[in-house]
């Protein structure tokens, strides 16, 4: 509905032109991932043919087998998955509590806290590489999942809190009150009434936190140098040797790494868009 309000106001509206524009958009968004998929299905021999071929002539899954045997790709996937899931859970837990306080309680410093949250969302975490490295080292957390989970939680905390505040504000207080009359404590009402009713918001926040953690590279590269703890983005850079770049194998590993997040995005696309555009840009 709202989509059509400005749609036909656009500079272009003929149908063939619209199809062309749609095509441009899809190529812009999908081509890099598609190209990597094509590359991953080519044989080493086909890759060095000139002029280069576009579609693979004799598709092979050999590169995928090599991707899993040249490096412990499954382990990288596991590490990434665990770090992302655990930091998402921690982010959601902390931001549900904070968001409830901000949405429901009469707090004196509410505006100040909200500004602080927005300030944290623009904070350049990279500048804290040295002190975080020192802290993790002092706490003996280098080369553990925790060294990544804690900073990733901070990374997603602001956006998740903002999304949840706006969802919680939409839940009628009466529902909470009647739960409390039925003997529920306030905290009980939060987890039994408010959170379930805000499930779409919690879910949206969770997806954003998951993608943020899944994508992070610099801290993972710096804090977890132990091969058995590497996450996927760090692990994939290991396929390249000093001079050799086994591109079909790297491509296969990239495809494997893209699939989980792509599936998430395909299933929950509308939710992700609403999360990005509501929580992300509240200024």
């Amino acid at each position, binding site marked *: 509905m709202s989509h059509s309000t400005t749609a036909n106001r656009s500079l272009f509206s003929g149908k063939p032109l619209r199809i062309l524009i749609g095509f441009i958009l899809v190529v812009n968004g999908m081509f890099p991932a598609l190209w990597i998929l094509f590359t991953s299905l080519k044989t080493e021999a086909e890759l060095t043919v000139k002029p280069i071929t576009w579609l693979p002539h004799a598709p092979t899954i050999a590169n995928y087998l090599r991707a899993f045997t040249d490096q412990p790709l499954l382990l990288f996937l596991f590490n990434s998955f665990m770090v992302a899931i655990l930091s998402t859970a921690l982010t959601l837990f902390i931001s549900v509590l904070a968001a409830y306080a901000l949405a429901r*309680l009469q707090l004196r410093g509410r505006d100040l806290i909200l500004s602080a949250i927005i300030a944290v969302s623009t904070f350049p975490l*990279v500048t804290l590489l*040295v002190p975080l490295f020192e802290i993790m080292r002092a706490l003996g957390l280098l080369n553990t999942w925790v060294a990544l989970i804690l900073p990733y939680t901070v990374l997603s905390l602001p956006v998740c809190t903002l999304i949840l505040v706006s969802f919680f504000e939409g839940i009628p207080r009466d529902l909470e009150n009647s739960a409390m009359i039925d003997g529920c404590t306030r905290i009980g009402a939060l987890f039994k009434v408010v959170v379930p009713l805000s499930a779409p918001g919690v879910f949206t926040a969770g997806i954003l936190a998951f993608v943020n953690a899944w994508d992070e*590279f610099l801290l993972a590269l710096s804090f977890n140098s132990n091969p058995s703890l590497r996450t996927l983005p760090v692990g994939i850079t290991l396929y390249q040797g000093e001079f050799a770049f086994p591109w079909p194998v790297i*491509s296969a590993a990239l495809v494997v790494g893209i699939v989980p997040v792509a599936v998430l995005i395909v299933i929950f696309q509308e939710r992700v868009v609403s999360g990005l555009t509501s929580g992300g*840009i509240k200024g």
Partner: protein
Amino acid sequence: MATASETTLVTTHNESGTKWWTRFLDPSERTLGVLLLMPAALLLTLIIVYPVCRLIWTSFQNLSLTSGVPATFAGLENYSLMLEDPVFWETTWNTVLITLITVPGALLVGLALALMANLPFNVKWPVRLSLLIPWALPLSFAGLIFAWFFHSEYGVVNDVLRRIGIEGVIWFNSANWAFAAICLTIIWKTSSFMALIILAGLQTIPRSLYEAADVDGAGRLRQFFEITLPLLKPAIVVALIFRTITALQTFDIPFTMTRGGPGTSTATLAMYIHQNTVDFLDLGYGSALAVVMFALSMGVTAVYLRMIRAKG
């Protein structure tokens, strides 16, 4: 606890059907607020507040983990070293240049993508996915994919150029072309997020404004500049600030595409901080470099806050 007060608690609370101990689980607004905000505050203290203090302190120290010597106070030594360090100036300049090129670049491309995506398509999901996939793709993956795109022999970019009769270049052998390839990659990666934000803004503009403009005889272009752009401004400003701050931290894409090469011609400040910290374990110098990046980001945030305040 005295029995007397327990009894009173029980009697008062039994009226609303709760037991005395729920008082501890059902504290006053203020206590509850403190309790609920505590985990967030603790985490932010550990991961941001304390590290910021530590960062500034360490930047005035001689602290190298390779030497095994305990930290000593260095005063401004790290900073004076930095001012004479050509690599510091080069990486800082590269970072600023990447910001100045890719932020407006991503804005323009993002605006174009958003205007295109706002057309009344019959099927909406392919367009939506086309904007979401680049956003969800890890930066490091984008760097690797585009390194392969720009491969001089077997890359698709040089292949397309050859087909339209242009001789490709060996992208990663030349400082300028490597830099251009990195900027193009960053613009591609970040423009779709910009487009999503702008698209959301576009969809909130009421149609009646355009109808009124039609009645007044304003052309499409004029409507774009006098209705669409001004109303998009708040969304664009916020997106620009976030993009600028992340551009100052650019690391993943140059690292995966060129490792800063040839030489240090495409290295960024974040890469130099990472090298000094993790490779050289020179924490004092790494901190001084980080303080500079911190100051750059704070400058951007200050401009941001001033803009918000100016808006009222």
